[in-house]
């Protein structure tokens, strides 16, 4: 190993520091509009923080070796006849296994958190049916149904029960980090708690977008999501049932 070994290690540490700083300041995601979205974004941050040193370590050794151990064309010298090293391989295996177990733990805990809220009794049940190419949204308790938008009250736990009339679609609201396929012949469900008011016009990520290829009109299978106060929501339901 010797002195040359510590140079790429130092390089990896430097790269890690820079990488972590960049990763901390980096927020590429749509603004959060549901409680549960924090779990996904938190998981993303943890995974990124773990990924940066791995990337830095491999890159540093790769670049250092390529530059340091070059040979000129035509120069036919062999490297040392080293076929491996058990301590190095065992250490490597130990480190990668530990990292993987940490990743598994992070994922399992995050999933448990999402599951936990999904299984709490909802304040509101909404039924959504996908069809080529639109969404039929109904509020069974109020007897209201529309295909123009999904309106939700802020601060209430909502369970959406999803199915499809024809082919497989996928119900996705980017700002909620919530997605579930709409499958003909079965009912799937997803739960979330909107935590701020808003609408598609100001915030393009408040939309129900079909995320599973469903034919010609797939790209256009989008309806707006509008999150309103409890009061406005009741009023809207009343208006809708009068029109129906």
């Amino acid at each position, binding site marked *: 190993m010797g002195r040359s070994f510590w140079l790429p290690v130092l390089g990896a540490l430097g790269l890690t520091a820079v990488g972590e700083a960049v990763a901390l300041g980096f927020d590429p995601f749509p603004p959060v509009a549901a409680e549960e979205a924090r779990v996904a974004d938190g998981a993303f941050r943890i995974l990124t923080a773990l990924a940066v040193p791995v990337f830095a370590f491999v890159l540093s050794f790769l670049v250092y*070796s390529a530059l340091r151990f070059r*040979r000129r064309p035509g120069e036919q010298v062999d490297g040392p006849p080293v076929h491996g090293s058990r301590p190095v391989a065992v250490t490597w295996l130990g480190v990668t296994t530990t990292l993987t177990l940490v990743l598994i733990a992070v994922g399992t805990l995050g999933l448990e958190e999402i599951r936990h809220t999904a299984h709490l009794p909802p304040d509101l049940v909404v039924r959504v049916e996908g069809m080529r190419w639109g969404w039929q949204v109904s509020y069974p308790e109020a007897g209201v149904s529309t295909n123009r938008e999904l309106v939700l009250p802020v601060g209430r736990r909502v369970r959406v029960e999803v199915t499809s009339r024809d082919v497989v679609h996928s119900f996705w609201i980017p700002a909620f980090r919530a997605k579930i396929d709409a499958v003909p012949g079965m009912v799937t469900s997803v739960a979330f708690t909107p935590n701020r008011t808003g609408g598609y016009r100001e915030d393009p990520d408040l939309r129900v977008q079909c995320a599973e290829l469903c034919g010609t009109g797939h790209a256009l299978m989008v309806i707006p999501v509008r999150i309103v106060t409890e009061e406005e929501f009741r009023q809207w339901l009343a208006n809708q049932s009068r029109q129906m």
Partner: protein
Amino acid sequence: MLLPIGKGLLFGALGFLVGAGLAGAVRLLTGRAPWAPEVLLVAGYPPGLVGWLLGVGMWDYWVREWFGLPRREEPADGPGRFFRFCTDHKVIGVQYLVTFTAVMLAGGLLAMLMRLELMQPGVGVLGLAGYNAVMSLHGIFMIAVAVAIILGGFANFLVPLMVGAEDVAFPRLNALSYWLIPPVALLLVGSLLAGGFETGWTAYPPLAALNPRGELFFLLAFLTFGFSSILGGLNFLATIIGLRAPGLTWSRLPIFIWSVFAASLISLTATQFVAFALLTDILDRVAGTAFYNPAGGGKPLLYQHLFWFYSHPAVYIMIVPAFGIVLEVIAHLSRKPLFAYRWVVGAFLTIVFLSFIVWAHHQFTSGMDERLHVPFMVTTELISIPTGMVFLAALGTLWEGRILLNTPMLFALGFLFNFLIGGITGIFLADVPTDIQFQDTYFVVAHFHYTIMGGEIFAFLAAVYYWFPKITGRMFNERLGKLQFWWALIGFNLTFLLMFWAGMRGMTRRVADYHPALADVNLLISLAAFFLAGSFVVFVINVVHSWARGPVAAANPWGATTLEWQTSSPPPHGNFACRPKVLDSPYSYGVPGAVHAVAGLAGGSDREDQFSREEEP
């Protein structure tokens, strides 16, 4: 020269007419309308396929003897052998390489069409249906390339050479696997004429049953391709198990051969599952069965499980041989033994095993039983352990090596960089909470292009340059090669890093139109993609020009130890003048006098021409 192909087309057409005619007659006799295009197509296709194979040379060089007739002699030389049923594994390797390079370039052009449509929001040049058709065709073209370009091309050319055999175990079966490919191409082009198919290469039902007729062409093509893949896997396993030269024990196998062995285990045993899924998809469409139609009691989710039970292992059919190539190139061009050889072999076999129990990570949002989420997340994350071992081997070999930074080595290093990003981003898709958001977005598109294009295709390019002198007998242009490498590396990373960003910002995959808020990132991706495409022009110029006019290469320009370099370039029929003997590890660098294998050098050259160890200072 093209006579066998003409004969194949004629016999194929006759076979098709016989099959379709019979089906029409049966329908007429049973009181149904004889004209049912999809039924006739499905009934005519198998006899048509058999007719094609017989015409293109199977009859002359193989089947005649089943009927007691003397088999015709295969003409040994001339360019004609590339255009008919030929059993020489080197000819078949070149057939695969040229065919799938052409398919790759065609698939690339389709990608450029997609980027043209996506340059700005709104429905543009292709239209919604047109975009879906182009995207679906791009998908299946590139899947076919990824499965066959290394395993069909380089494995065919190299496995018999590297194990010191005259040919593969079943040469005629090998020719059969290749000649199943042209009907696949014909069907895919036919699918466009029949209205295209809009399901992507995944062909999920019930959509697959509602699609234009092109869907049926696609399903038949995929089925045929899978058959070819099974036969190929069988052949490589038999060759590696049975035809190794004396002394070539399992622990002396070059790592590329191990990688082909591992990938072949998967193609031999997993492909049947997708064949079943496709067959039942066809039956649902043509015969009105209800395997996946909920109205008749079928389950759309069942198809997804069957499909991914093959299609996830399939990504290891693509990437494990790429690992093999990269480690091979790094060891020989660093002139150092492969680091942790046994650990890597163990890693390959572990990957084969794990690849069979990770499929449902494609379905975290599919509505499958929630109890499956954690087990599949765990198995998927576990794959990073053997994959990490491959990185250890690469870095350990480079360390204190004598690295020749030429074109093949640069592509091998480029593979490590790209695959590192591809592997790390895979973690975000294995993790359920983040995958729920990323599923079906450009994050996924970017991830698998990093592993397959930045990974496998970079390894393929490393292989093209590393074995170019062996296959063509000529040297490539090093300057053009380096230009292509840097151009491709920069273009590739610009294009696909931006796609991660698009995906995180909410860009759905497989769409022709998107929200105007995503206009800027899509414009940048398109420009970067057009730039990336330019690097492939350099590639084509270099390969075509060097193959025709390049300087004649020595038998062993890299001074490499493995057996394929111990014969002339290109190798003669039968590969070696006499049966080679293997004496030591293929990575016997750094020990004066150590020799991997002794082979009588065929083709008139002499061992003196090669790199000799006396030159060492």
